[in-house]
């Protein structure tokens, strides 16, 4: 058994931390306040090679393992979840389907810019009436000659409306009991990107509803095999769960660091608040949760990198880490007292941002469903 990251992974973690501290942390409060998607910063993340980490060198990628990607996501989340989800969704939901299911022509066409971080891709699975039950998708795509004609709508799609979004991969019904995956370039007539949502957190992350009105794309934009859409997105979501767990780990780490520092520095009744067991023990719990989340996350990432089954481990990691992150942000906010309730306090932002970790890419309930089915229990979907 070996719990050590490689020297290269450690060196890379340092670089990403330095990048996050210098290029993201000083501005995160402002982006949160103004709901600004910082395109320039995302392009810098691209220059650092973050979007290309796990992809083949022939498309400009770094051929890093999944563990290394998780390290980058964790380090970004430690200072700002919005930028972490921009990377996580960009890689896991945006690029991954094309890298895994794309034809050589599709890869040639889309991957170089996406991998370099010059453009972003989004993945449109969720619909206003189909979230956890994503198989209930109502969006339809009908083949008309050489074109798919798409009608329907998608909800809550990350990275779908930025200045650098080049495409959205969507799931659509292509027959009675048939779901397929289709690539829709961002500028396609008939695709409407709706105004951004007013979100509780992740203010600097780009999220839109999408509408398709007789939106036509070439027949060749079908991604992978017709009718395989359901299996494709389930597999994509398994990877995504580990990456979201890595995000939650970064959030936990941030809560731990901020809380311990504040508990030492803030005084009340003539002593640091950390001299009270009530506060010190909260910090001890934060340390414990952070450590547990990190172990579960990197165990799942390691299983995936070894080519071993990881579905159960991914669901366990995502469930635990997301719940722990929500608890940790609440407790850290408590340690900060009244200042914790101020929007500009980093743990306050983390508190608002953390809740979605229990909802996106499979809710807590869906994770429990996956885990209990993995235990062989006859629970229904």
């Amino acid at each position, binding site marked *: 058994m070996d719990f050590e990251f490689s*020297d290269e992974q450690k060196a890379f973690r340092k*670089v990403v931390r*330095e990048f996050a501290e210098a290029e993201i942390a000083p501005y995160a409060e402002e982006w949160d306040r103004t709901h600004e998607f910082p395109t320039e910063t995302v392009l810098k993340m691209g220059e*650092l090679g973050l979007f290309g*980490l796990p992809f083949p060198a022939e498309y400009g990628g770094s051929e890093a393992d999944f563990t290394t990607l998780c390290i980058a996501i964790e380090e970004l989340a430690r200072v700002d979840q919005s930028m972490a989800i921009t990377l996580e969704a960009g890689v896991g939901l945006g690029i991954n389907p094309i890298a895994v299911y794309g034809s050589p022509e599709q890869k040639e066409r889309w991957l170089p810019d996406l991998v370099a971080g010059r453009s972003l891709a989004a993945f449109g699975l969720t619909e206003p009436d189909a979230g956890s039950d994503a198989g209930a998708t109502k969006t339809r795509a009908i083949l008309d000659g050489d074109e798919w004609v798409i009608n329907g709508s998608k909800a809550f799609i990350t990275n779908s409306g930025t200045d650098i979004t080049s495409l959205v991969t969507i799931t659509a019904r292509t027959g009675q009991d048939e779901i397929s995956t289709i690539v829709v370039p961002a500028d396609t007539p008939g695709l409407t990107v709706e105004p951004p949502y007013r979100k509780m957190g992740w203010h600097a992350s780009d999220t839109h509803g999408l509408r398709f009105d007789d939106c036509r794309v070439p027949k060749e934009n079908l991604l992978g095999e017709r009718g395989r859409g359901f299996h494709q997105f389930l597999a994509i979501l398994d990877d995504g769960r580990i990456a979201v767990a890595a995000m939650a780990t970064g959030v936990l780490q941030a809560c731990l660091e901020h809380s311990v520092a504040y508990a030492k520095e803030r005084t009340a009744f003539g002593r640091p608040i950390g001299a009270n067991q009530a506060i010190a023990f909260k910090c001890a719990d934060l340390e414990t949760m952070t450590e547990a989340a990190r172990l579960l996350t990197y165990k799942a990432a390691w299983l995936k990198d070894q080519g071993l089954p990881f579905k159960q481990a991914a669901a366990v990691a995502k469930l635990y880490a997301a719940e722990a992150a929500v608890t940790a942000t609440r407790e850290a906010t408590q340690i900060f007292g009244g200042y914790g309730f101020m929007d500009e306090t980093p743990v306050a932002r983390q508190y608002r941002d953390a809740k979605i970790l229990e909802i996106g890419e499979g809710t807590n309930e869906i994770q429990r469903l996956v885990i209990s089915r993995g235990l062989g229990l006859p629970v229904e979907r």
Partner: protein
Amino acid sequence: MKIAVCAKQIPDPATPYELDPEHHWIVRPDDQILDDTDRYGVEIGLQLAEASEGSVTLFSMSPAGNLQGIRQALAMGADKAVIVSDPALKGSDALVTAKVLARAIQQEGFDLVIAGTESTDGSAGVLPQQLSELLEVPALTFAKAVEHDGDTIRIHRQTPDGYDEVEATLPAVLTVTAGVVEPRYPTFKGIMQAKQKPVEQLTAADLGFDATEVGAAGSAQYVRSVTPVPARQAGEIVEDDGEAYRKILEVLEQAKVV
């Protein structure tokens, strides 16, 4: 253009430095990082090399340790490194360090040598000038902007009031200030490639020095005593009764900042 960049490995300034009690030399752990001030030299070196289809070789003298600091500079894109690491060098002062580095650089050949203006752990601020003397080439120092055109190198030399324009023909020594360029972050690809890049480790003897010429024996400079920095005094608090600005101006004038 063949570019030599000085890259000093130093103990992480974020960790407390340890001095050996007898000689007051810095105890150098296995984990040393690239001196932050040398990141600017590496970046300028890479940019000049990219523009001239040249190469960047790093030169360093220090206990090699795990070479983490050197690998940092290689991960940014430098082509290779030469590190002089030898117990015989223990206690070498700045001039001896310059002699050692000069010989290593000479042996490799160079058009331009780039260094920082002063290291973070030693802060002598003399080594590059010593290098220029030993290599018998001009020194362009305190560059805040650098331009290269054929055989000519032109800089803006930082002065208290602005800058001087200074020019020299190659070969030359150049020192760069922080802020001359924005150093790039190493990418993961860069970090992986750094593992494969050549790192040549030399001893003093490899460079033709005998034991009396280097180390404490060869050095005229030694550290007589070390005194801890006095604890910072509490600042003066000026209550504003409408006239506080006078008091503040007075203090600023005394400190000669206005």
